[in-house]
């Protein structure tokens, strides 16, 4: 009963529909690419180009040395001297300065006398993440100023991402986000669109079975996923200079399985929906939370426990681990296979449920 020939015919049709039309081809290729480049570039948790204010009540020279040392670091680009607390409030309110350093009158005197002086750093809590990181930088600079040559030396090194480039972290994740969203939306909408336009009936009266149709519908999502994966690989390696240390085969296999899982989810959504609008919104309602809890934007271990449990079910979580592992960490085959297994399980379940729901609808 099950015929590969028919499955292939429908899959080929899906690909034709997707890629023959100029507009649809454009929509599949160009916006995601633009997203990779723009957001890959924009997304950074590093703190750069920081402006800060200084309220200096200290008459001595040492506070100025501290300020200059901070300004000497590439992170900080502009220092706004303020004369009064009122002015300081203005500058902070406007968001011109990420933080203000306050030196009191005794700063130089204390230091010269061998006492430990204190300085205040007032941070803008509206950007508390950036402010916190900037504060660490400042603390590091001040303590290195006074560092004694004695004592144990500390060597700090970063593995996998020596310069802590945020892109190295975010770009591999972005491909996961895009493959997932496109797989969800493309698969979800094609079924709804066929229903709306009426081509679905024409397909159903042919000898092809619902299983064949459902499986064939997964192909375009996988193909676009692989195309994006390839483009992305080229962009991140040659455009952003991210090293690729793992196995290409592993990357492609996991991309394929992951795209299947996304497509299966899309198919589930679409079998519940009547119109394209509902399918789109449905895909969106499922897709965005999945992205948010998958650890692609923020680390999973910062989340509350129950969300960490939920994120275990989301295939994207494991894909994030896998793709980063393949790219940066030279992941061990053992843990790679464990991740792949979880994604494959998710794919299997979602495709199975989708096919079942699909059959019930027709």
């Amino acid at each position: 009963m099950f015929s590969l020939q028919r499955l292939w015919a429908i899959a080929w049709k899906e690909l034709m529909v997707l890629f023959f039309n100029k507009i649809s081809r454009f929509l599949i290729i160009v916006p995601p690419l633009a997203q990779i480049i723009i957001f890959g570039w924009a997304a950074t948790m590093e703190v750069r180009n920081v402006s800060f204010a200084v309220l200096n009540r200290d008459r001595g020279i040492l506070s100025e040395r501290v300020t200059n040392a901070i300004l000497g670091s590439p992170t900080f680009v502009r220092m706004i001297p303020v004369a009064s607390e009122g002015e300081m409030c203005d500058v902070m309110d406007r968001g011109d300065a990420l933080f203000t350093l306050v030196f009191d009158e005794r700063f130089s005197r204390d230091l010269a006398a061998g006492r430990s002086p204190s300085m205040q750093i007032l941070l803008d809590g509206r950007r508390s993440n950036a402010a916190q990181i900037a504060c660490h930088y400042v603390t590091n600079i001040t303590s290195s100023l006074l560092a004694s040559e004695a004592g144990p030396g500390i060597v700090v090194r970063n593995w996998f991402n020596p310069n802590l480039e945020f892109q190295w972290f975010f770009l591999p994740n972005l491909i996961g986000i895009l493959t997932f969203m496109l797989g969800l939306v493309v698969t979800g909408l094609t079924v709804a669109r066929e229903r709306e336009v009426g081509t679905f009936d024409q397909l159903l009266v042919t000898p092809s079975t619902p299983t064949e149709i459902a499986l064939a519908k997964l192909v375009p999502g996988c193909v676009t996923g692989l195309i994006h994966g390839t483009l992305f690989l080229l962009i991140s390696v040659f455009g952003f200079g991210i090293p690729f240390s793992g196995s290409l085969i592993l990357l492609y296999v996991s991309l394929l399985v992951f795209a299947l899982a996304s497509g299966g989810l899309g198919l589930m959504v679409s079998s519940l929906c009547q119109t394209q609008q509902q399918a789109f919104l449905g895909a969106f309602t499922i897709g965005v939370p999945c992205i948010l809890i998958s650890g692609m934007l923020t680390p999973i271990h910062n989340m509350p426990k129950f969300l960490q449990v939920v994120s275990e079910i989301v295939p994207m979580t494991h894909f994030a681990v896998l793709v980063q592992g393949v790219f940066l960490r030279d992941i061990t085959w053992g843990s790679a296979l464990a991740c792949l297994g979880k994604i494959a399980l998710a794919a299997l379940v979602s495709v199975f449920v989708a096919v079942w729901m699909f059959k019930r609808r027709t």
Partner: protein
Amino acid sequence: MNTTATTGSAKLWRKQVLALIAKEFAQIVRDPSSYMIALLLPALFLFLFGYGISLDQSLLRIGILDESKTQSSTALVADFSASPWFRVHICHNMEEVNLAMRESAIQGFVRIREDYERSLASLAKRPGSQNLLAEAHAQGEVPASLQLVVDGTEPNSASFLQAYAQSVILGHIRGLMRERGIHTPEITVQERFWYNPSAKSVNFLVPGSITVIMTLIGTLLTSLVFAREWERGTMEAMLATPVTRLQLILGKLIPYFALGMFSLILCTVLAILVFDVPFRGSYLALLAISSVFMLCALGQGLLISVHMKGQLVAAEAGLFSGFLPSLLLSGFIFDISSMPPILQWLSELLPATHFNLCIRTLFLAGTVPSVLVPETICLTGLAALLMLLVYRGLKKSIE
């Protein structure tokens, strides 16, 4: 036959707009997907941003490889274990560490070398440097007895881990020096967070997520409305009635505006009551600025809707021009000042960027005219521009 058409044209004009609004509302009420977007999505997003997404660091998993195995090294390990920031995994050899790092069982590790004890001895010999403002400690000269290695894949966590680990080590050494009666001066840095004293990321993520939600309602929901009317042939019927294009636009704008403002109020109430985000500004200012922002979002959605006649294309345009930029480019999660200049420029063109700054300020800092006034002027300008484009777009789309 035509007595009614000309009586009281201004009144008639208003009545026609009201009729269009009533129609739109009736349609919204009947469509389950509009409930989803107006009620379910805001609640879900707020929940996720409020509880799930957090930039605050929880326990960091650190490995410690103690090759020295002396009393002093054990004391350092104990300090790490006692620190509120770390969960310590004791490792026994380099292979184990390597594996744990590759499988990201740990986020970084401290390697205490065999000569650690000896290097501590130097503390006693040289009672602190008098050269107070010496150049930075030249690491290469002294063979380091402590190694701190951090998993850099996730740079944000990595820099936190670096900073915390270093402060634990420094604190430990200072303690030792005090024990031995050596006093080195140090600059104590007193951190204080303004606007957000506990420095919780919820406090800025939740107001920011309101921006995302309003963009979603404004842009995504409206990007389909005209496309749908063209597809179903109702647009033609409308154009054949005496209503003008301006009335048609108003008939779409007002109901979705109301829906958006409703979600805004809902989100604000949830943010304050459920997530305990402080609100320090004026509610009136919030309403006024959100209205202007809502107009921008609606303008963007309607602009897409007027130009894209297929629903699929319109939906995708809404996603890529509305939702993703407001999530990633508006300073919601990623700080704008750290982006490359071109993107900073681009982000200035996004209504979401301006609104984000306003709403965070209103929530956390209060009504600060020096922030709100210029941003509101920018928003008003963008809203006017978008509305003009919508009006002109609708005019052309009949042919």
